[in-house]
């Protein structure tokens, strides 16, 4: 039974695309067949983060408008033969597809893949609505900042209104040392406001900047803390019961295991 999961956030620049690329790669590492779909039509960049920009011939809008078959538009990843990208169109805008188009498209993808991850555009307009139209479940990405959390709250309300079940939360770019100095919202602060299940915490990691610029996903780099966090989230998505690790930004310190605080990720038992 394949699953369609949309990654969204409300606010831009919090790490939706990086999360989609890394979760897609981490699921493929587990031997699963994965499609990642860039639903940010007109502002595509999932292809850039995955280093596949120069291989695009057809895109999502070409498929929807019948100029090519789905298989022709899917681009195989450089490292994982079972990971495919469906790129967004760059020369069109959000009006080029409808929610029904997206539902039809995801149903086609379900036939061939175990997981379909959809990278949503920022915002609450048509692009976001299209991105969640075909989804079975939704992951919300936020950073521990007031503005990002506020937008995440808004998005959660909309996801619930569209009856997409209970979304789960990724807290991205956490800086544990800033939290311990009281300069950044803590995991508990964010969860207190959003009141949804946490599926993972990704530490702030400068290596992510270089890896996304190079078009290499962080999960391939064993030394990357963010990459390890994404690999853990992928295991939880697949249903494993993995306690949430907060990888500290000081490599000399022991990782703090959040299970000790009574916060545990919930597997996908739903």
């Amino acid at each position, binding site marked *: 039974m394949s699953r369609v999961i949309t990654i969204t956030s409300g606010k831009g620049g919090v790490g939706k695309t990086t999360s989609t690329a890394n979760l897609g790669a981490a699921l493929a590492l587990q031997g699963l067949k994965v499609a990642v779909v860039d639903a940010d039509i007109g502002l595509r960049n999932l292809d850039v983060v995955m280093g596949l920009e120069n291989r695009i011939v057809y895109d999502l809008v070409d498929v929807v408008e019948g100029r090519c078959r789905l298989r022709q538009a899917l681009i195989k990843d450089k490292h994982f033969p079972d990971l495919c990208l469906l790129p967004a169109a760059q020369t069109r805008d959000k009006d080029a597809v409808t929610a029904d188009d997206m539902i039809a498209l995801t149903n086609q993808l379900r036939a061939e893949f175990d997981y379909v991850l959809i990278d949503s555009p920022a915002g*609450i307009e048509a692009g976001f609505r299209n991105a969640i139209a075909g989804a079975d479940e939704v992951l919300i990405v936020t950073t521990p900042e007031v503005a990002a959390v*506020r937008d995440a*709250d*808004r998005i*959660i*309300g*909309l996801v619930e209104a569209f009856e997409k079940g209970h979304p789960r939360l990724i807290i991205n770019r956490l800086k544990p040392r800033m939290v311990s100095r009281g300069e950044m919202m803590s995991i508990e602060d964010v969860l207190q*406001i959003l*009141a949804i299940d946490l599926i993972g915490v990704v530490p702030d990691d400068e290596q992510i900047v270089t890896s996304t610029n190079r078009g290499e996903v962080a999960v391939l780099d064993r030394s990357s803390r963010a990459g390890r966090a994404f690999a853990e989230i992928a295991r939880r998505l697949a249903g494993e019961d993995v306690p949430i690790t907060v990888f500290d930004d000081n490599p000399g310190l022991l990782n703090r295991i959040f299970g000790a605080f009574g916060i545990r990720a919930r597997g996908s038992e739903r």
Partner: protein
Amino acid sequence: MTTLVAIKGGKDGLRLHLNEAAGWSDVLGALRSQLGQGAQFFNGARVIIDIGNRSLTEEQLAELMGLMHEHHLEASALASTSRESRSAARAAGVVARPVTRSITAPESPDGALFVWRTVRSGQIVRHHGHITVVGDVNAGAEVVAGGSVVVWGRLRGTVHAGALGDRAVIICAIELRPMQLRIADLIARAPDGAAIGHPEVAYIDGDQIAVESWERYRRSNRSDL
């Protein structure tokens, strides 16, 4: 005295009942003053206008719609048993339905609305009576009540009690940290600083909004509580 205009909250939103027997100009006058008093309550709301079996001419309907527009109200539908009124409404581009009297909100006998969930940013809870929220009201959310507002949780959004003009209402919450407090025609900004850590209540004292701990309020103000 017969009620010329009544406001009810229902499952499908606010419902304006206009007395079907009284003179049209009286009804319209009552509606005008009601809308004037509760300007902030109604602002931007979508309402169903229920005119019962009254027959409205196109001119009367235009008057009614003009009044609605003036007060930034959107008529989502006109409910009427009169075929004539419904066709006048359709001609004016308003959705018309036969009256369905069975619409009742899940409310207690005294007209309170019970909300058992987190009210999130961008969501609005609006009701003509009291509102009780079991859960948090997050920043960016709005709660607008004709009566009092009780939040069994953290109140961080914007709240307006007595939005139809009633000053004898209260707002209380386990953690009262709203963006803005409004009671009737008064507005207060939340004080800066950290959470107090005990339940508080806001009410009108003289001509301003006062906030104090629930325990103190209970001891000093109301011996009957």
